[in-house]
């Protein structure tokens, strides 16, 4: 995307929302505003919300909107600098030392350096979108390490010196809130909480994501999913599951199952917990029939 185009699509929250919709991601005003502010203020964007509300999808949509490559860093417990920043290829270094014999060799040469996502982003010639996914799964120490990266967009490699970003990346962090993040991280970011959409918006998302699904089916699925989510389930269904349910029911219906039956038979793609399934099963027929109106 040319620079002028990038400026045009990020000119206002409305322009961003329209462009996201073109990338098949429906953002409400608040999310579009948060994305707009993060891009214009040059700050990281922190997205929090329950699993399955579309946080990672939002990051992918932003990368598509800006026409930038997405670099993803998936966090997990125990992730450290070696996994996120850089690592030396020790085996190759050892081999090189052995082969060098009496000759002098620089074992901290570029060919021994393995760039992990954060370093990849800094060394990239063009701007990248960096997705730090599920930051809440990492340890507090990693959050502190990231803090340093986020404030200066640079990495210090003791053997090589400091590497600064050629162009400042756009950073999006996601969290499921399995633990509270440090205040220091929150205050450096533009923040947005993504909740489950209402029935009307969810129906729009289903129609947009599953093109074979009829509008009436999408509405029925959205209504039924709202009703199901209101129950105390072990794993409340996310938006992706709702889309899959609409798709699966449509396929079954085209294969000859009549409507309420097609929904019931496809329930396995919506609810993926055996106990939830047995809890909802007795009422499923009523929920679907009411949703179909």
């Amino acid at each position, binding site marked *: 995307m040319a620079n002028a185009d990038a400026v045009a699509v990020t000119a206002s929250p409305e322009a961003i929302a329209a462009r996201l919709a073109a990338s098949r991601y429906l953002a409400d005003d608040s999310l579009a505003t948060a994305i707009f502010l993060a891009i214009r203020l040059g*700050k990281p964007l922190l997205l929090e919300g329950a699993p399955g509300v579309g946080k990672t999808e939002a990051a992918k949509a932003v990368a598509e909107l800006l026409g930038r490559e997405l670099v993803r860093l998936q966090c997990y417990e125990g992730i450290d600098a070696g996994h996120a920043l850089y690592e030396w290829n020790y085996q190759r270094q050892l081999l090189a030392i052995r082969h060098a014999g009496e000759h002098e060799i620089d074992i901290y040469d570029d060919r021994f350096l393995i760039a992990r996502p954060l370093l990849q982003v800094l060394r990239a010639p063009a701007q990248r979108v960096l997705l730090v996914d599920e930051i809440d799964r990492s340890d507090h120490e990693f959050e502190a390490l990231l803090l340093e990266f986020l404030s200066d967009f640079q990495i210090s490699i003791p053997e090589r010196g400091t590497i600064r970003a050629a162009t400042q990346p756009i950073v999006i962090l996601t969290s499921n809130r399995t*633990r509270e993040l440090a205040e220091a991280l929150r205050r450096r970011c533009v923040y947005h909480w993504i909740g489950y959409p209402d029935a009307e918006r969810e129906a729009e998302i289903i129609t947009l994501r599953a093109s074979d699904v009829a509008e009436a089916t999408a509405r029925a699925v959205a209504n039924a999913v709202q009703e199901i989510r209101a129950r105390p389930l072990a794993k409340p269904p996310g938006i992706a599951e709702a889309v899959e349910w609409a798709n699966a029911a449509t396929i079954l219906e085209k294969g000859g199952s009549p409507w309420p039956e097609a929904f019931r038979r496809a329930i396995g793609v919506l609810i993926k917990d055996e106990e939830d399934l047995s809890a909802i099963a007795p009422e499923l027929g009523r929920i679907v029939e009411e949703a179909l109106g």
Partner: protein
Amino acid sequence: MPRSAQPFLGFARLLRRHAFAIAPEQVIGFMQSVTLLGPRSMNDIREAALATLAPPPDRRGEFEAHFRAYFYGDAKPSIKGEEDDETRVKDDRGTREEENQVARREKGGELSSALEQLSSRDFQRDADSLGQFRRKLATALPGRRSFRTARTRSRGTLDLRRSLSEIVSADGDIPSPLLRRRQPVPRKLLLLIDVSGSMKLHTADYLKLAHAAVQGADRAEVFTFGTRLTRITSALRVRDREHALVRAAALVDDWDGGTRMGPTLLAFLAVPRFSAFARGACVVILSDALERGDHTELETAMRRFSARTFRLSLASPLAGDPRFRPATSALRAILPALDDLVDGSSIGSLTDFILSLASPAPAAETIWKRVS
């Protein structure tokens, strides 16, 4: 400072007065955002405030109330209790008064209050044991192997990073290989405190214990439940106990009411971030488990907890009585899911039990079968 910036500074000051942590850089970000957005309407200012001042989701309602009061001149907001949508449990089964009337007619309630009068207190021992408990807790909880590694002298994997720098500094030689091993970390501790009417005599002690637990353990979470579910961990993080307990008390608004133990525990498990906290944790439920009516939901909740947790324990004040047996149908139904059913009648017995969580013990069902 231009005059037009004053209202935004004033709003940040107001939030700080109400214990929102707002950093100066956030205030600058707020004002820059307002400028970037126009602003074209009050909604732009609100969106800018939400994005840059980043109120925690559980205080979003309070934040909105302050915003309306400040920018729209609404009446002073009345802020009470937890406003987190995720933690709110819809109380749609009649009023509390009705529940209390029903509870009074029930045998369980009578049994509970009769036994509660039997329990005795030793205040000095309580204070001492809480101090010791706080100091010992971090090392007393059962451990697990973390994915973080630390250097070790034996039984580890080769640490190539450090070995290589040793090789270079020793001119191509290495006296002994350097090893790393996964570090042990303490498991999480989750306390679920019953604040219903039948537990009235014990809730104050339980909160003191919970405060010591949050102060002592690396990762501890505390919830109260009665007719609603309330997360009070953040209130208990305040070091001063009296201050922390006042804050916690203000969050809970179903003190001494009825109990809907099954539905509230199921609601806990239905919130993914809470449920994730229970995974692999030591969960201690402080309750008499006197569930009214049908106990199917309680049984389901306990089974789900049991499948997620490392150790699931029920500490009941009734178990302090030597004559106690898990005889109610609810207790009989949940006993197979429990790892422990222990005495929760005093701070001393509870601290001793929590500090012993790392030692293996036979399942609750086996023990109580032997006793009965």
